[in-house]
Structures are given as structure tokens and as C-alpha cells.
């Protein structure tokens, strides 16, 4: 009897798990490592509320997200930037606003840089921290790899009309950039608030404006962008529900240092 019950339980278990496996809606999202923490958190919360939906989330960079969703390899392409005009058929779903910080190694004690100084550093015109009010220490510029949305936003909102020199080191994800800046004396780089807030790196103020959500909301701080969850054609069904969930969940947005689009007091097109 006992054995039968166990057997029955086992069979039920199997049938439940197999029906679950077949009834699953599975959603795949990949791309921006700046948006990744939010999408990961949201996926966890969404799956907990909707057990029949399975969401797999990965990084790779904004360019990867755009490419893969354009090739229909994934359902949602996460990106810090609007897709280039050469990529067609994608629908842009803006889900949040993210601020980015210029970050430096904490031992430098540098807290503020002017936009001109940042441009000079990344263009390679300035190579020692003592030229911009820091200690006598060589500047180690760390870029993001080409294909990073964060890099595009940085070039567009902070560096333009100058150009980033290609000579610097480059790392391919938000997390890597932060750990390299943490360990390397004299290092400077840039990354999204979602990665930099609370880390042992210094988020420098740009022209005296601190890198905070409040300053992004008012538009005083220039280095920010919309986060996009791109779909191939209009989003439908669970994919649409999930995207709406991401953009409307104030608690998760705040926790990961994102800003709800409706909270913004300023707006930009083509960002």
C-alpha cells in the first residue's frame, strides 16, 4: 500500500513535471550587461508568479542583443541604444532609464572631473592624473569593446564631438570593467549605475554634477540612456506581459538603480 502510494506520487510527479515541461512558455532574452541585473531580477519575480513561464536571461552586450533578436535567435534583445537604421523589423520597447557613471580607482581620491578633462583622458591627450588634479600616477584607460551599448552612449553623451582613442584596454562586460577598475591603480572607465552603485569604485561627478538618479531625472547629469527591450515585430503574449512587468515594477527598478520612464522630467529622442 505504502509502496503503491509512493509509486503513485512518483507517477504524479512525473506527469506534472512533463506537462509543465510541455506547457511551458519559454522566453529568451540577451544583450546589454547594463540592463542584465534588472532583467534577471524581473525574470525571477515573474517566474515565481507565473510558474508556467520559463525565462532565460543572458548578457553579451547590446550589439549581441540587437543581432540575435534580428536573427530571431532570441525573443527579446536587451540594448542600451536604439538599433542602427541598417537593422530592420525590430520594435523598440523602452522599459527604463539608466544612468551611467565615469568610474575611477578609489586610491586616486579624484571625485570630480570636467567634461573637457574626461574628453582629454579618453582621447589620450592627458596621460597622468596630475594633469587633472590627481596624484602623480599614470592614467589607465579602460574602454568597453566595440558593440557595447554603454560605449556608444558614452561617446554620444560625454565624449562627442571628440573621439575615444583606440589605444586603451578594453573589456567586454560591465562586471569585468568594474573589477578591473577596482584592482588597477590609476584606472578610469565607465559603466551603468546598475553595476557601479555600492561598488568600491569612485563615481566621479561630471562638471560638478554628481552621478545620481536624481540628477538624471532632472536632466542635469548628461550621461544616461533609455533601456530597450527589442522584439522582432510587435511583442505579444507572455513576451509583452514580461516587458510590461519590467517597465512597471517600481520596486525592482529602484533596487537596481533604474529610473521609471514616467518619472523623468526630461526626455530625449534617439537615445
Amino acid at each position, binding site marked *: 500500500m505504502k509502496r503503491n502510494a509512493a509509486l503513485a506520487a512518483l507517477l504524479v510527479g512525473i506527469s506534472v513535471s512533463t506537462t509543465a515541461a510541455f506547457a511551458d512558455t519559454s522566453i529568451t532574452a540577451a544583450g546589454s550587461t547594463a540592463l542584465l541585473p534588472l532583467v534577471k531580477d524581473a525574470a525571477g519575480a515573474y517566474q515565481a508568479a507565473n510558474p508556467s513561464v520559463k525565462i532565460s536571461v543572458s548578457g553579451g552586450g547590446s550589439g549581441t542583443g540587437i543581432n540575435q533578436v534580428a536573427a530571431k535567435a532570441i525573443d527579446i534583445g536587451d540594448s542600451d541604444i536604439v538599433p542602427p537604421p541598417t537593422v530592420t523589423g525590430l520594435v523598440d520597447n523602452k522599459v527604463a532609464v539608466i544612468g551611467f557613471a565615469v568610474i575611477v580607482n578609489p586610491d586616486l581620491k579624484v571625485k570630480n572631473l570636467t567634461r573637457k578633462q574626461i574628453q582629454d583622458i579618453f582621447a589620450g591627450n592627458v596621460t597622468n592624473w596630475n594633469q587633472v588634479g590627481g596624484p602623480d600616477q599614470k592614467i589607465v584607460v579602460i574602454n568597453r569593446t*566595440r558593440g557595447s551599448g554603454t560605449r556608444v552612449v558614452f561617446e554620444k553623451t560625454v565624449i562627442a564631438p571628440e573621439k575615444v582613442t*583606440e589605444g586603451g584596454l578594453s573589456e567586454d562586460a560591465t562586471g569585468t570593467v568594474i573589477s578591473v577598475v577596482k584592482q*588597477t591603480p590609476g584606472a578610469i572607465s565607465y559603466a551603468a549605475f546598475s553595476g557601479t552603485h555600492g561598488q568600491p569604485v569612485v563615481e566621479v561627478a561630471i562638471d560638478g554634477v554628481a552621478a545620481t538618479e536624481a540628477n538624471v531625472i532632472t536632466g542635469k547629469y548628461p550621461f544616461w540612456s533609455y533601456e530597450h527591450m527589442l522584439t522582432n515585430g510587435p511583442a505579444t503574449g507572455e513576451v509583452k506581459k514580461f516587458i510590461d512587468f519590467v517597465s512597471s515594477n517600481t520596486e525592482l527598478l529602484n533596487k537596481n538603480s533604474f529610473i521609471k520612464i514616467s518619472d523623468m522630467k526630461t526626455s530625449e529622442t534617439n537615445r
Partner: protein
Amino acid sequence: MISSIARRSHRTERIALTVIRMCAGFVILAMAAILLYLSVEGTKTFFVDHFSLLQFLFSPDYDLDDNHPGAAIFIVGTLLVTVFAIVVGGPFGIAVGVFLSEIAPKRMAQLLKPAIELLVGIPSVVYGWLGLTLLVPLIRDHTSSPSGFSLAGAGIVLAIMILPTVISLSEDSFNSLPPSLREGSLALGATRFQTIVRVLLPSASSGLAVALILGIARAVGETLAIQLVIGNATAFPKGIFGPTATLTTVIVGEMPSATQGSLQEHALFSMAFLLLIIAMVLILLVRFALRKRT
């Protein structure tokens, strides 16, 4: 009765041969497909975007926003790390090969050999990770390199990675020498060292060449381990402790995000094609070295 067995074995033989032929055919087909695909995609930089081969090979200007697909930095980067790896790892590997074949007690050689072969099985990302966590801070703290990401670091990691290949193959080539060579040399009064340097090394030279060439081939193609320690800077290295990039690291770094049909994608395919050509040249060199031996 007999004829039915004969017929049956005849049939199994026919089936077996067909299967084997199909396998061989599939390999040839796959090779041809790769070659064709890469040569079509890899030449679009020249035939679709109309850049000259000379500009691709010799221009250090790699700026795709500005339409400059020069790959010279990456070609030089690949050459430099490879040379570094083979200069450091090559003689070392051959020395260990000599040790295993000629000097080590049999028991020790029997223990060491599988241990060295085990090194081949370690995934390259593990080598890269070790390089990143051990070598990069070491170079940062003890050299002029401010970040620790450098050509030298990548070269050292590569040198370690090619060791098993070089050791195994050079040991094999020493082992395949006839004992009469050693006996003759020793009988003439040569010391063991003289025997190794004057007799065995020259006799095994073509085998050693194969060991080194296959080591080079491994070094040229290695990607992940280098990417983690070389710094991925689009610039010629400023000295041995400066960061740079190689063909493989730029391909793996940019291919996922390169838009289909863009100049970037074409340029990366051209680099992949170039790597394939380098690999083929190396294989031809191996064949040449082996032919010389026989």
C-alpha cells in the same frame, strides 16, 4: 550453405565499406564547406567593400565607424605572442622531451608522461583565468605595466599551453631514433651530453621541427586564454609589457555584436580566413618536414 555465409559476409563487408566511405566523404564535404564559406565571406572586404588587400594587411587603422578595416595591429599581435610563446616554450619543451627520453629513470618517465598529457586536457579558459588572477597582478606590481594586461603575460600563458604538445612530440621523435645511434656515439667515447647535442638533436631535427610547428599552430589559434590577459587594446604594444590584441581575440570580442553584412563583419571574416590560411601553411610545413625525414 557455404555460399550463403560467403554472401552474407560479402554483404556486411559492402555495408561496412559504404559506411566508412560515407564518413570519409562527410569529412571532405565539411572541410570543403568551411573552406568555401570562409573564402566567400572572408573576401567580401575586398570584393564588396572594395578595400585593397594591402590596406587590410598593412594598415594599423582599425576604425570601422570611419571605414578603416586595417588589421595590421592584430596580425602583428598574433605574430608577437606566437613568437614569444615559441621562444620561451619551444626550447623548454624540447629540453623536457630530451629529459624524458634520454635522462629520466624509466619509472619517472612513466609517471611524468601521463601528467604532461593531462595538461593538454585542461580547458584554455582555465589557463586564461590563472593568467588573469596570478600573472596579471604579478606583472602589474613588478613591471612598468600599469594595468598588468600585456603581451608578455599572454606569451607566458601560451608558452605553458604549448608545452605538452612540444614535449610529447619531441620525446616521441627522440624515442624513434634507433638505439644504434646512441650506442655508436657512446662507444666512440662521447659523453651523454655530447651524444644528445651532437648526435641525437641533429638526427631528430625534422621531428623536432614538427613539434615546434604544431606548437606554433596551437599558439596562433588560441583565443580565450589570451583574451583574458592581453588587454584587448587596438594598438601596437608599447614594449613587451604593453597591451595589444590578436586576430583571434578581436574576432571573439566583436563577432557576436557585428551587424550582418556590415564592414565590421566582413573584416572579421577576412581575419578568420587569414587564420585559416596561416593554419594551412603550417600544416604544409609539417608535411614538408616529415617528408624530409623519410
